[in-house]
């Protein structure tokens, strides 16, 4: 029964690291800052959160478990706010979407 927890921790760690890698590959491959933000904030947050949850499952200590879970909650609360602020600032200042973008719903000029 103790083995089961160890296997779960192994799987969570690998999945979390994989998601962190996917986020950074998205950071390299995607064309503009707005689409890169999808990769960095969603996949990156999921990766770190899964690894912190793995630490919480692995640990026997109540203090460590609460700290890891508080870290997850805190990270889930702050990451979307930071990304949203950054995207709004970049858009307000005029960084353009890539040419591959299909539409820009916030655009004021080319509304029909």
């Amino acid at each position, binding site marked *: 029964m*103790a*083995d089961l927890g*160890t*296997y779960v*921790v*192994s*799987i969570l*760690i*690998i999945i*979390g*690291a*994989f998601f*962190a*890698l996917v*986020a*950074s*590959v998205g*950071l*390299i491959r995607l064309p503009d*800052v707005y689409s*890169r*933000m999808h990769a*960095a*904030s969603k996949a*990156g*947050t999921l*990766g*770190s959160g899964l*690894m*912190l949850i*793995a*630490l919480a499952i*692995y*640990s026997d*200590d109540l203090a*460590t478990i609460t*700290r*890891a879970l*508080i*870290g997850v909650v*805190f*990270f889930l609360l*702050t*990451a979307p*706010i*930071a*990304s949203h*602020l*950054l995207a*709004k*600032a*970049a858009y*307000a*200042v*005029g*960084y*353009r979407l890539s040419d591959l973008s299909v539409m820009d719903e916030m655009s*004021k000029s080319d*509304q029909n």
Partner: protein
Amino acid sequence: MSAQDVLDMSINIALVLLSLAFLLTIIRIVKGPTLPDRILGLDMLVGAAIGYIAVIGVKTGYTLYVDIAIALGLVGFLATVAFARFILVRGQADEGGMEDGHELDADAMIDHKIGELGANATPADNQEKQGS
């Protein structure tokens, strides 16, 4: 193969994957091409560092570092918010990513843009909202 062996192996795999993630993120930070890209890279770097600390906590049992991870998350959040404000204050984007030439006179640009923002930003926004 015991459960502990599986755990050791998956920790090593995870550390390799996380190191690759660090490397790719740093390539993006160095390449740019714009300031928001670099800030996004720094944000991602903080996230990957928190994950790394969690894996190290499982590997070595030094869970003291989880406190540091929480503090790192707070500092990363505040840094991103501050940088977003900086992008807003700095004003109009320079397309093409040739920002290095402009870093030198950033102070003069900030002074200039603060004046412009104070005079124009809010009324212009309101007019656009009424028009649409």
